[in-house]
């Protein structure tokens, strides 16, 4: 089976690099008093104002990183991997909507819900996908 729309294998490492890079960058931003766009904004800001631009950059870095990690090919991309990929995607969507519905009912903080929605599907997908592959490897080692 030939799979289209997946990034090459090395993109996984690039993705993790971007995610890791995002952490010190946003910490630096916070240390310099930059607020998160999701926090209540006391003053009016333009789209290209420094803080907004900084937030966009770090968020883009993080989400692009997660996206690359999630949708990079495995070393051997076969039909079982695509089956696991699809199954994990299904679980990620389930969990995302569960979290979304629960937070809609119980939380009134809409901007943070948006932020949550940005991460939950990708992070849950990555965790579930890697966990299943790890379990497969473990069972292979047990048999060897």
């Amino acid at each position, binding site marked *: *089976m030939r799979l289209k729309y997946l990034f090459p294998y090395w993109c996984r490492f690039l993705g993790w690099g971007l995610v890791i890079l995002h952490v010190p960058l946003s910490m630096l931003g916070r240390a310099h008093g930059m607020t998160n766009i999701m926090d209540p904004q006391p003053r009016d800001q333009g789209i290209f104002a420094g803080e907004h631009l900084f937030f966009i950059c770090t968020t883009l870095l993080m989400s692009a990183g997660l996206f690359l990690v999630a949708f990079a090919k*495995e*070393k*051997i991309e*076969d*039909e*079982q*991997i695509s*089956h696991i990929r699809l199954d994990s995607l299904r679980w990620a969507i389930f969990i995302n909507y569960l979290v979304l519905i629960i937070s809609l009912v119980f939380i009134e903080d809409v901007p943070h819900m948006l932020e949550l929605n940005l991460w939950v599907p990708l992070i849950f997908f990555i965790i579930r996908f890697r966990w299943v*592959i790890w379990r*497969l*490897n473990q*069972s*292979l080692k047990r*048999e060897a």
Partner: protein
Amino acid sequence: MKNNIRVERAIKDMTQADLAEAVSVSRQTINTIESNKYVPSTVLALKIAKVFNKPLEEIFMLEEGD
């Protein structure tokens, strides 16, 4: 669905890695098919049968309840 890939491999003196390489999948995939945890696609099943030079039905069999 049951299969006797393990037996066929032993007859041909092939390891899981050999078979995996012959049909371009990972060793994990062959392992999970052998232990009946994963049902291969028709394409992969046909490729495996071709490696063993046997008809598909001699390698993969339906179980009761399938």
